[in-house]
């Protein structure tokens, strides 16, 4: 990507993307200034939701080994808080941050100066209001029985409108870009921004507005969930990786020509993998088998992204340079997690293995590997790069950056490893026909509580740093920026 970018950029238009420009404001480029207010809005909301989600995660983790904790009031039941925590994390944190990140990436890559950025901000406002209303409904009224569709159907409509307002810009930015070049990141963002609203709307229609017959709802839901995880969260985060990795290493991508194939195969196969999460469920066998085949075919995009990214990192002491760069440290952590997550998904779509781990915490561990260790870590890395360019300020404290990385990295490694290990041992015990009650490990809940506290510490460190910068915009030391 960078190579094409460098070579084919018309003379006079070139400046390193995202860096302060030579003209205009001394610190903030014109492109960055034009997207600054919506992107800052999305990042700030994401940050607030992240804190809410972290506090809720601590409560739900404690409830799993102390069921009587905060149990006097029905609104604080595990079932309600668990659903709220999940929705806050996915719609509040991850989606807000990715909408902001996608806007910034497209504006930067396409050298597109926003006019009417307020439309995107308005979309963000509606998005966050709808989420708040939805959470309140789950808290005091009812919820739907499907993961990430728990919010009432009216909220979904508001989400849809908000997303069109906020993320229609990718298409506009793309069409009106002054440079003729298209980069891999742009394909991924366009694809993700197209898939989410379409899939979300169809799913809402088929599950909540005009419910399909019986188990078909579960089938539609599995289709939605895989699209949401891989083609909205996953593809958006991959876009950021395709941008930051070659850019910060100041090098070219290994096997760049393969990335087209990687893009199309991911979009082609990921949508079919839903039924692979329904093995053994009362849906037709041919549908389950189709899902398994699709999951195995994910091996192709996985191989290509591995060649692209790990090939690049293996050259010119890329690994150590990445480690010493704040953004890349997070991004490369995410990259390793993405590779592991997809490899596990392929491996555990095999019927015999899936029979053991299905319904245990193993699946939760797999999901966390993808959505936290990959997507969230990439967002953090991107935020460390983008926010200084939007605010013209430096990160106030290098120590908080370190605290953030180490607590989140340790927490996610501990949490995912715990879920995978205890999930597997529980599944193996169940397969050996041990009674269910004897297969639960109390250590698992203790470990996840400890990790939830560690997550909270890391997120507070990040929030202090980021809010400090967003509100004061005052500069500190260069050391902090380089961190």
């Amino acid at each position: 990507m960078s190579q094409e970018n460098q070579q084919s950029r018309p003379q006079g238009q070139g400046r390193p993307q995202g860096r302060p420009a030579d003209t205009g404001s001394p610190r903030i480029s014109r492109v960055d200034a034009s997207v600054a207010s919506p992107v800052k809005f999305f990042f700030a909301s994401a940050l607030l939701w992240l804190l809410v989600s972290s506090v809720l995660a601590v409560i739900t983790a404690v409830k799993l080994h102390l069921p009587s904790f905060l149990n006097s009031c029905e609104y604080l039941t595990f079932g309600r808080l668990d659903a709220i925590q999940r929705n806050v994390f996915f719609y509040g944190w991850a989606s807000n941050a990715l909408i902001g990140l996608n806007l910034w990436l497209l504006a930067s890559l396409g050298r597109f100066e926003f006019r009417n950025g307020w439309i995107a901000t308005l979309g963000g406002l509606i998005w966050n209001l709808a989420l708040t209303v939805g959470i309140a409904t789950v808290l005091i009224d009812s919820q739907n029985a499907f993961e990430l569709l728990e919010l009432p159907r009216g909220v979904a409509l508001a989400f849809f409108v908000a997303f069109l307002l906020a993320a229609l810009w990718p298409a506009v930015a793309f069409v009106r870009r002054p440079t003729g070049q298209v980069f891999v990141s742009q394909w991924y963002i366009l694809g993700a921004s197209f898939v989410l609203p379409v899939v979300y709307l169809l799913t809402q229609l088929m599950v909540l507005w005009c419910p399909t017959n019986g188990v078909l709802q579960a089938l539609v839901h599995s289709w939605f969930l895989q699209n949401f995880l891989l083609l909205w969260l996953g593809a958006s985060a991959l876009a950021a990786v395709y941008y930051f990795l070659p850019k910060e290493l100041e090098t070219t991508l290994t096997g760049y020509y393969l990335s087209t194939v990687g893009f199309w195969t991911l979009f082609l196969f990921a949508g079919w993998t839903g039924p692979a999460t329904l093995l053994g469920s009362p849906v037709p066998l041919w549908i389950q088998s189709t899902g398994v085949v699709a999951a195995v075919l994910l091996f192709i995009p996985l191989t290509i992204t591995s060649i692209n990214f790990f090939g690049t990192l293996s050259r010119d002491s890329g690994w150590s340079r990445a480690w010493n760069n704040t953004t890349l440290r997070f991004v490369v952590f995410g990259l390793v997690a993405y590779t592991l997550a997809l490899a596990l998904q392929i491996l555990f779509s095999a019927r015999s293995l899936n029979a053991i781990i299905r319904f245990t915490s193993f699946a939760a561990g797999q999901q966390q590997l993808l959505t936290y260790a990959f997507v969230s870590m990439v967002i953090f890395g991107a935020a460390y790069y983008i926010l200084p360019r939007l605010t013209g300020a430096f990160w106030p404290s290098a120590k908080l950056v370190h605290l953030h990385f180490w607590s989140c990295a340790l927490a996610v490694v501990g949490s995912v490893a715990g879920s995978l290990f205890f999930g597997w041992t529980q599944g193996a015990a169940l397969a050996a026909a041990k009674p269910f009650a004897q297969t639960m490990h109390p250590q698992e809940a203790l470990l996840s509580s400890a990790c939830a506290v560690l997550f909270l510490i890391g997120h507070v460190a990040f929030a202090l740093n980021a809010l400090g910068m967003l509100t004061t915009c005052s500069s500190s030391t260069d050391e902090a920026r380089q961190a």
Partner: protein
Amino acid sequence: MNNLNLILAGVFSTVAASFGGLLLAGHAQLGALGRAPAEEGGPLFPALEPGLAIQGRQVYLQLGCVACHTQQVRPAGQGSDIAQGWGVRPSVARDYVLQSQVALGNRRVGPDLANYGARAKSDAEIAAHLSAPAAGSAMPAFPTLFNQGKDGSLQPNERGTALIAYLKSLRQDYSSPEAKLKQ
């Protein structure tokens, strides 16, 4: 690849392919599935749900029970659900045709409930479990589903009664054309 229309058309085709191939095809196969007798002339299954059970399903959804309980029994060979005593036969699509919103679930912190009504002995037993789960259980008590009686004992209130009726209605212990019970 720098043509917006081409990219969008391509992505649209990939979404349309999985939508058509999985969901529309699935709908063509199962969309019209209804109740049926196991043998000609026999009673139709699944049985209609009592009104109280339908109200109880709302309580089940409200409280987010689906976070920890599934309602699906996998066939023998694909997990040990039947060996665990959670069902006498695997769940089939026809078992769910009357449910306005299926709660199959995807995580088991507690046991599967697809056939819970067949193994629960009495209303009192279910009520006791909801008001004071056994020690060591990860399930919280649900005091808001109960009122204190005059003698100090806990009596299920309106929502509690509905939830108990719903849990009792969860049965997959009948023969259906796709899954006959062994005699």
